[in-house]
């Protein structure tokens, strides 16, 4: 199993451009998440999904959109990129085991908006 894969690894965007961060998992997990990680701020939840066709906002959803058409894929869309979206983005997936959810993280995408 490849686990959680993310593409691209790095990307530089100009202000106002748009892009999609790809996330795929091959563990048949129902739950998927997008986080952003900024220095000294920990991981902030952007959006999450509890199954195909179901998505919901996390702590910091502004400027982002997601879709979940299949169990495997959970792309994150940035519209009109802003410098404040410069960050490292992590996708994660999980399943419920005895009521707890271990999250499996991808390797991350480092995004710079200039």
């Amino acid at each position: 199993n490849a686990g959680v894969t993310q593409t691209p690894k790095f990307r530089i965007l100009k202000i106002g451009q748009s892009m999609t961060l790809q996330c795929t998992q091959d563990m048949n997990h129902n739950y998927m998440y997008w986080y952003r990680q900024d220095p000294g701020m920990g991981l902030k939840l952007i959006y999450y999904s509890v199954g195909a066709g179901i998505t919901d906002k996390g702590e910091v959803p502004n400027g982002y959109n997601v879709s979940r058409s299949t169990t495997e894929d959970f792309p994150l869309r940035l519209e009109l990129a802003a410098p404040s979206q410069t960050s490292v983005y992590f996708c994660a997936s999980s399943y419920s085991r005895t009521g707890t959810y271990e999250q499996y993280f991808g390797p991350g995408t480092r995004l710079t908006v200039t």
Partner: protein
Amino acid sequence: QQQVKQSPQSLIVQKGGISIINCAYENTAFDYFPWYQQFPGKGPALLIAIRPDVSEKKEGRFTISFNKSAKQFSLHIMDSQPGDSATYFCAASLTISNTGKLIFGQGTTLQVKP
């Protein structure tokens, strides 16, 4: 009420010493407290987790101590090794939400000197 506060932000320990990282939470409904370990350039990975019905959980050199009345929990790394140098995140979750969402602390960067 959804915050998890983590300290210290950074920690330097000599090889063989004890590393201690502390976290405090506000929401008394949280019922699952994992710790994640992140190496540079990688995504976080689950290290150890605890439920509030126990006061301590030990896995090898890693121990979680949990104080429900104080709403605090901590990670102790015994006999710290240079290979333990990483960023550590505490987190909290409300399992009844059935979303697997985690609220992360700000992170602690640990450096173990040889």
